[in-house]
């Protein structure tokens, strides 16, 4: 009798221990967003060739010719118009070809590309030291410096100095917008937080910004902890916690920024390096953060990671674009690659559940947008321009209807 009681007690203690362990694991997982935040980092800087696409080749002047040798960081093309935009060589080597190739820029388009063969020497024309006093620059000096940086704004696709050339009073660094890449944001914060805060401080000083807000997901406890540890001396930088996503109201004196661009700005401010390398995230079973040179072929990346995929998604798995062309190269607007295993995408008839409209963050009516696809007046009244292209309508549709695809085509048609 005593033995049975003892055994029962023991069982209860073991179960309690198990419960405690599971709860702790669950709590950790919630903190880590389901183990989402511990990506591996791979620096892939040795591609055999680099292909630099020149979007709108008629507007650009290509400097080197086939057979010329270029150093790392040399200008290889620049914009002829009023807006300065320079394209730099990410490697040192010989120009082997200037051909037309497919590249990804808001869809796949065929454009002129400069192909450079890597000599793996990373030769630079002149060595530059670290600029320690970068926050003493005047706004004009900084804008001049930025105009040579070659960094583009992710949203407007315009050179970054245009964004900063206006009078700025408020800066919002949004890590919770619809295009934000959580894996990359977490990686940058964990590894470069000090540099990020220095850059933000320098931008505040240079532009005489009175308020800077960093928007963070309130469930991302680890990141919040890191920020709270280091933000103490930066009085003008404030943290804001949101539950899911944040859509700020932007007026003319407010600018939106993201952590990735801030990292590139830090590189440019400190080391005076042009924009030649880029972070992307790669996901299949695991998540990687890759640092790659602009123009690296996706085929090279797959070979380096020892992966055999022919289909992949550019962007995230909800709103991305499915591509099966491995010859595409990394361009500035590619932020994530997802290896794709084809799943059954059965199309049933709509059951009128209304989940598409219910889950739309902008309160749009996706079904009505498709119904009025030929009526531009109605589409304007249905606020199709407010569509964030988040893909939640398709994600939540229980009948697997790809509403997002239809809406994107209609929206692109409206813009044209």
């Amino acid at each position: 009798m005593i033995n049975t009681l003892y055994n029962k007690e023991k069982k209860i203690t073991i179960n309690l221990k198990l419960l405690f362990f599971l709860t702790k694991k669950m709590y950790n997982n919630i903190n880590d967003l389901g183990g989402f935040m511990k990506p591996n980092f791979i620096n892939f800087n040795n591609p055999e060739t680099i292909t630099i696409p020149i979007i709108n080749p008629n507007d650009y002047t290509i400097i080197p010719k086939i057979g010329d040798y270029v150093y790392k960081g040399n200008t290889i093309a620049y914009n002829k118009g009023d807006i300065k935009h320079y394209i730099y060589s990410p490697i040192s080597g010989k120009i082997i070809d200037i051909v037309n190739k497919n590249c990804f820029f808001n869809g796949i388009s065929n454009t002129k590309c400069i192909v450079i063969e890597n000599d793996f020497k990373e030769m630079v024309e002149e060595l530059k030291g670290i600029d320690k006093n970068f926050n003493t620059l005047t706004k004009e000096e900084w804008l001049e410096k930025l105009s040579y940086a070659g960094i583009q704004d992710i949203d407007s696709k315009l050179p970054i100095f245009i964004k900063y050339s206006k009078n700025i009073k408020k800066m919002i660094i949004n890590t919770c917008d619809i295009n934000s890449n959580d894996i990359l944001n977490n990686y940058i914060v964990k590894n470069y937080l000090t540099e990020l805060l220095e850059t933000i401080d320098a931008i505040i000083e240079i532009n005489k910004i009175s308020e800077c807000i960093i928007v963070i997901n309130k469930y991302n406890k680890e990141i919040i902890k890191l920020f709270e540890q280091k933000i103490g001396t930066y009085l003008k930088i404030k943290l804001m916690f949101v539950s899911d996503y944040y859509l700020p109201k932007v007026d003319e004196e407010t600018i939106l920024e993201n952590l990735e661009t801030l990292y590139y700005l830090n590189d440019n401010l400190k080391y005076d390096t042009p924009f030649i390398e880029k972070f992307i995230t790669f996901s299949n079973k695991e998540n990687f953060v890759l640092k790659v040179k602009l123009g690296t072929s996706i085929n090279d990346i797959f070979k380096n990671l020892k992966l055999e995929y022919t289909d992949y998604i550019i962007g995230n798995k909800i709103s991305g674009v499915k591509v099966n062309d491995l010859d595409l190269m990394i361009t500035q607007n590619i932020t994530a690659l997802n290896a794709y295993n084809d799943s059954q995408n059965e199309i049933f008839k709509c059951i009128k559940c209304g989940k598409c409209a219910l889950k739309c963050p902008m309160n749009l009516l996706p079904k009505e947008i498709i119904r009025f696809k030929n009526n531009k007046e109605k589409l304007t009244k249905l606020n199709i321009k407010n569509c964030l292209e988040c893909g939640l309508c398709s994600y939540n549709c229980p009948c697997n209807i790809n509403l997002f695809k239809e809406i994107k085509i209609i929206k692109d048609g409206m813009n044209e």
Partner: protein
Amino acid sequence: MNNLEFGCFKKSKLSLRKINLNILISLLPLIIYACFLYNVRPILNILIAFLISLGIDFGLNKIFKDEYKLSFNLNSLILTLLLPVKISFIVLIGIIFIFKISDYFLKKYNLLNINILVLIILLYILLFDTYLVQINYKIDDLIYILINNHTDIIAFNCPFLLLVSLGYLLLTNCLKWRITLSYFITFLSLAFLVNYNYINLLNGVLLFEAIYLISNSETTPIYKISQYCFGILTAIISLLFYKLNIDYSSILAIFIVCLINPIIDRIYVWLKTK
């Protein structure tokens, strides 16, 4: 650019199959309770309905050369639960036959606003007129009604289990709860105007209608506000019919409002884009 395939490459967990499965799970307690009351007869009815609907599906798809998909048709199950348990097998087979064929053609020709389930029940009432046994409840019977309603219809037998099913469907997000809620609230708040006996609210008929008939996804509006309007309108028409002494007022009201449900959506969209 239009040849590219845009999202969605990842799906939420709520699929059509999962919704159907959840509705089936929510009906299981009722079926088990019916077996406790009537032995194997409910299971026999359900099996016959299932096999007949499967056979008709298969046959129709072969004749019209559509792609055949083996799926358990939940509507034929709900229909079986709405018919008296001791129904003759020939009548049951006939009803399921008519239901399946009309359902197939309505879906094929996109006439989805006709609530075929309610229509078949109305036809059954017209033909046989033995649908519900009217019982005069007393106040003392209140708890007893909730547990055993003494009707021969499985769906209305145990209102308490229907409440459990309602809870399950709400938890799994498989119900257009706005319709159910607005229907209930309007019914409760306006019933005194027509001298409605409030005890009848507990006899299971209203509950089953509100959960499984009125919130049928295909025959109800899509948008939030139109769903509320739909529920309110159904309750008002139902009470109006009750006042006019029309039998089976609520089922008739559901059928009529389902017929005009696209208009409610259209009005909402028209107002939004005005």
